């Protein structure tokens, strides 16, 4: 474990006019760490995720990322081209709706292969072999490689989106409600898969979810957001078993027991 974080975020705020998206968010993320950001709809968690992944520019604050050469770079001072390159190579973004992260009208294999070509791979045989390997890692049968994701179930599409994101060996992955909208049994399978991949690859991840059970299973650390602000943060099991902030207590006490 290195002592330097991969991502350093300080006093990040995003305002939509006079409305607060997120305000004064500060944290560090280290390699191999999964940070869950929880809160209800409108709490600012997705705004934060979009700012971190540079899909949105913040109103104020800074975020710096440790590049592969060990140098920290200010995310919001990079050129658009540099940011796009980072997005294609070193980062992944898993959307809640797989259709937002996949190209629905090209084959599953091409969806995975496309990211490889974007980082300069040109050898068709190698690209296809890597695609087959990644499809099997996300438990999609090899004989589905030429099918379009339109013909896949929701769970399969989500697994394909994950393969597409991880094929370039990113170091940081952003996930927005990765299990939202899936059946419980499909969710369990996906969570188990994500857990395994994150551990095996030593990924760092920021996972936005409103589901505290998902946060418990995937993350080591957690931030609870309300009205754009972080109201509590800490070890995931500490926050869930000994919630301190009034809002966290309300969230935890609202979980339905089965």
């Amino acid at each position, binding site marked *: *474990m290195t002592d330097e974080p991969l991502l350093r975020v300080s006093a990040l705020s995003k305002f939509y006019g006079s409305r607060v998206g997120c305000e004064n968010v500060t944290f560090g993320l*280290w390699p191999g*760490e999964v940070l869950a950001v929880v809160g209800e709809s409108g709490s600012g968690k997705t705004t934060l995720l979009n700012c971190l992944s540079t899909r949105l520019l913040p109103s104020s604050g800074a975020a710096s990322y440790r590049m592969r050469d060990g140098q920290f770079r200010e995310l919001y001072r990079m050129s658009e081209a540099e940011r796009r390159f980072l997005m294609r190579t070193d980062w992944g973004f898993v959307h809640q709706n797989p259709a937002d992260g996949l190209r629905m009208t090209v084959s599953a294999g091409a969806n995975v292969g496309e990211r490889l070509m974007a980082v300069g791979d040109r050898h068709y045989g190698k690209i296809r072999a890597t695609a087959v390997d990644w499809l099997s890692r996300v438990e999609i049968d090899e004989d589905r490689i030429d099918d379009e994701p339109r013909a896949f179930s929701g769970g399969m599409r989500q697994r394909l989106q994950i393969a597409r994101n991880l094929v370039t060996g990113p170091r940081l992955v952003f996930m927005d409600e990765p299990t939202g909208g899936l059946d419980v049994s499909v969710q*369990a*399978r996906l*969570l*188990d898969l994500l*857990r395994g991949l994150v551990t095996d690859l030593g990924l760092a991840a920021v996972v936005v979810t409103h589901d505290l059970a998902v946060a418990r*299973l995937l993350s*080591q*650390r957690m931030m609870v957001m309300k009205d754009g602000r972080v109201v509590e943060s*800490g*070890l995931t*099991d*500490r926050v869930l*078993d*000994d919630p*301190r*902030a*009034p809002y966290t*207590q*309300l969230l935890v*006490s609202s979980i339905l027991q089965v």
Partner: protein
Amino acid sequence: MATPVVVSDVAKSFTMHLRDGIKLPVVAGVSFSIRSGECAVLGGPSGAGKSSILKMLYGNYAVDAGQIIVQHEDGLIDLATASPRTVLAVRRLTIGYVSQFLRTVPRVSALDVVAEPLVERGADREVARNKARALLAQLNLPEKLWMLPPATFSGGEQQRVNIARGFITEHPILLLDEPTASLDARNRDVVIALIAAKKATGVALLGIFHDHDVREAVADRVIDVTAFAAGKIAA
């Protein structure tokens, strides 16, 4: 002899914001230490705060006041104020914990649940699985269950998986929250033997055991938690 855990003047209360912010004091003035090679037992009736003390030592509950000094790698750290990252490192390398109930993960086999803490410490997966097999066999868990996820196991079977998971590593400090609560006599004896083996290798153990026979068999010392009742000491 080394004293890897020193607890001084620790206090814990819960503030229930959903109940008009009433404050429930749990313990105050908690002070004790544990030496390597001994098994100390937290004693006292239900509700005295035994589990809360154990959970604070694991970083699972926040600490209101006081210090929990733990020997971690080559230094001393205060768990009461440590960052989440430090607590995670302490859990990986220094403090092990056997909880009362197993938190199961969908689709992960009992064998891998047990092997996981070793793998996290960098052990080879097959080496870890072999050690897990040996422990599960010692705890008499039928071999046909090893490759199944423990979610559907009986209480006693789950607890044995949990115990194996807690005992597989060589953490120098081990916390035990009623590890024998739902075990039959034969398996209780196995746990007593496992605890004795840990003591022999110099592990510092702190446990809660409601079972009188087990406590008699393993305890070197009983720490009376009623002495730390939050009402007794003026806040």
